[in-house]
Structures are given as C-alpha cells and as structure tokens.
C-alpha cells in the first residue's frame, strides 16, 4: 500500500488521526493499524513546527496508537484487564473522533448556509438627521469605568499564550519514600546491586528517584557504594551506622511535581 504524507497543516492530533482513518477507504481488513501508526508518525515528523502543547497532544495520540499496535503484535501478552484498559482507550479515542467528525460536518453546513446569506446586505444607513436628536442618549448607561475597562481590554498587549500545564498529573515517586524502601531492603539484607534494587520494569523516573535515594543514603553514611569499573554494577551495602529515619529527615526532597494541582 502506498501512502503519501500531504503537507497539510493539521489542526492537532485528533484532526490528523481523523484524516488518516477516514482517508483509507479501502478494504478494512487490509488496513493495519501499523500503517495508520506509521503514517501518523510520519505526518507528525513532517509538521513544520509545533509548540510544546500541541506536540504533547500528538504524542498522547501516537502513544495510544502504539499501545494498540503493540497489543495486536503481542497477542500472548493480552491479559484480560490489559484488554479492558485498551478498549477503554480505544473507545475514548473513537468517541473523540466521532465528535470531531460531527462538528466538522456541522461546520460545513454552517459554511454553506453562511455563503447563502452573504448575498444579503442589510440596510444600515441609520437614522435620518432629523431623527437623531430624538434617539435616546447613548451615554445614559455608560460610566467612565466602562469606557476605561473597554479601552484596557482592547489596548492590552496580547500576552503570548502560556502553556497550560494544569492537566499534567505527573506526581513523581518521592525520594524519601525510595530511601525508606531501599533501607528496608539493605538493612540486614546484605549487599545488593543497583539493578536489583530497581527491579524489572521500573519507569525511568522511578530509577532516577532510586538513584537519588541511594546517593542520599551514601551521603549520610548509611550505605557504602562500590563500583568495580565504569558502567559496572553499583553495589550498595548497609553500614548500620545511621538509622534510615535520620537519612530521610535530612534528605532533600526531589519529588518531581509539575504543579499538578487539582487534577
């Protein structure tokens, strides 16, 4: 199947996805999600320039697509609740696509209707001079405050729109929590490598947090750290000199929190 990426400027990720999904009017069994995903990523790569906000929007949709794709490629992994979660994601995406398609269609209708109305020019000559004096006082209900407020609104420098981060709920794992966790494992548990301490499938943020926690423990003298060679395993051993609670009290809080309030 050939596909070309038209250099349309897409209005956001949903717009792009809708375009890709509705464009492929071929046998649906022939169309793989992978193709859509690839086209999607290609189109994103071809975007002339994007701001951070729309870029994250694209990423969210792309990530959802990739997740759907990977679930398809790895049928064995498809546990029941994974499936449920995926279906939820898909339904959400689908609902948004339908909503967007609906408003787009409504907009097309508006456009036609407005074009039909554009031929009518309303009479706007206004009052004839001898009626003007009769007209009620335009300033009757206007105060200086209203005038000044209107001027301020109209003349205010338009601020470059600030990135709204309110929806970013990235309440990262806490270093203090990680200190306690590592202490629990090391105190009386014998030496352990950093890999072991992190375990499998830990997110990058969690690994960073654990590393910071380990450094805090080392700084306080609660653990000793050895590394035999560059990029080799870091092995930590509990010294028993300092109780973990003390380390926690003195530790700097690195919690990664992008101002996620509310949501």
């Amino acid at each position, binding site marked *: 199947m050939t596909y070309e990426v038209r250099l349309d400027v897409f*209005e*956001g*990720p*949903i*717009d792009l996805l809708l375009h890709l*999904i*509705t464009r*492929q009017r071929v046998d*649906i*069994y022939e*169309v*793989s*999600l992978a193709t*859509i995903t690839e086209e999607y990523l290609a189109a994103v790569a071809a975007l002339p320039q994007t701001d951070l*906000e*729309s870029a994250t*929007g694209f990423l969210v*949709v792309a990530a959802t697509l990739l997740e*759907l*794709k990977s679930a*398809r490629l790895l049928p064995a992994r*498809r546990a029941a609740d994974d499936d449920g979660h995926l279906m939820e994601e*898909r339904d959400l*995406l*689908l609902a*948004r*696509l*339908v*909503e*967007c*398609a*609906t*408003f*787009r*269609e*409504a*907009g*097309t*209708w*508006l*456009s036609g*209707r*407005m074009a*039909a*109305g*554009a*031929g*009518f*020019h*309303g*009479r*706007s*000559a*206004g*009052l*004839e001079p001898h*009626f003007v004096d009769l007209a009620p006082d335009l300033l009757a209900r206007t105060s200086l405050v209203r005038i000044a407020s209107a001027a301020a609104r109209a003349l205010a420098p338009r601020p470059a*729109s600030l990135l*709204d981060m309110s929806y970013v709920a990235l309440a990262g794992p806490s270093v203090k929590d990680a200190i306690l966790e590592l202490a629990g494992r090391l105190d009386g548990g014998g030496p352990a490598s950093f890999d072991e301490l992190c375990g499998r499938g830990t997110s990058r943020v969690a690994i960073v947090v654990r590393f910071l926690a380990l450094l805090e423990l080392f700084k306080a003298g609660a653990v000793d750290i050895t590394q035999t060679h560059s990029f080799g395993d870091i092995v930590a051993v509990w010294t028993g000199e300092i109780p973990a609670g003390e380390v926690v009290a003195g530790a700097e809080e690195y919690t990664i929190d992008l101002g996620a309030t*509310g949501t």
Partner: protein
Amino acid sequence: MSGSDRKVIEAILLLADEPVPATLIGEVLETSTVTVETLLKELAAAFRAEDRGFVLRSAAGGWRLYTAPECGPWLERFVRNHSHARLSGAALEVLAIVAYRGPISRAQIADVRGVDSDGVVKTLAGRGLVTEAGYETGPGSPVLFTVSSEFLERMGLGSLADLPPLKDFMPDAEAVEAMESRLSPNA
C-alpha cells in the same frame, strides 16, 4: 388602515440598521404582534413578487431590509470592507462547537478539538461571529463564548433553536464502524 400600517412598517424598516422585532413594531403601531407578523410576511412576499432590489428577511429575532442577492455583482463597489474572506475549516469547526455547545470556554473548545483553539476563537470574535457571554463560575472564571446575533442574522436563523439537530451531522453507523475497526487491536 392596514395600508397605512404597511406604510409605517416600510418606513421603520428603512430607518432600522438591525433586525427589528415584530413586537417593537406592534408597540409603535399599537397593534398585536400577530397582525404585524402577518403584514411583514405579506410585505416580504410582495417585494419578492415585484422582483425588487431589496428583500425583507426575518433573522436573529427580527425583520430587516436586505439587498437582493442577485444584485451582488453590481453592489461590490458599494460594499466597502465587507469581509467576504472565507472561514477556514478550523474556524468553521470552532464556530459549530460554539453554536451547539455554547456558552463554552476556550479550554472546553480545546478539549473537544484536542488542540489549542484560542487564535481561532479570536478570529471569530474579531469577525463578530462569536461573542463573550459572561464568565464561568469556577477557578479562574474563564470567559464563555456564544455565537452572536450577527451570526444568526447571517445564517438567516431566528434563534439557536432553529439549528438542525447535531445528530444530523454525526457520521453514519458504517463510518463509525470503519473507524472503530481501524482502531481495534484485532483489525
């Protein structure tokens, strides 16, 4: 009697520079709104029948004289700065969202479209098609937007209730199914 009423209505329409509600004309003539509505409809029909250069249309809750669309080409030079610029697809989409979901805030519009739409909203406000309609109660009390009466007038709609139901614009079952199957992991 009715002839004189008709005459006054014509004069009022000539003075007006926005749609005039039939009730207002009724007050001036000391006549019922129903009577005025009947006269207005007769007048509109008469102008049509006489193939006049002006037409009488009802929109945005009132009646107003307009030039006949057929005269458009000749009128071009008289109509200064009439913005004929076509609206972009994005603008039309936002306009539709505001028409059907208003009063609505910028953030809610962005939610529906999945993309920041402030610039588009500003364009539409500048064109007088959407207008501020108070503030939402809630954190930051964002501005809410609705479509303007100028929008209704241009669309020839009496009110928002005259918009066709949104479901008329929904993609049909087949299209939705096609979308769904493309998003399904088992496609």
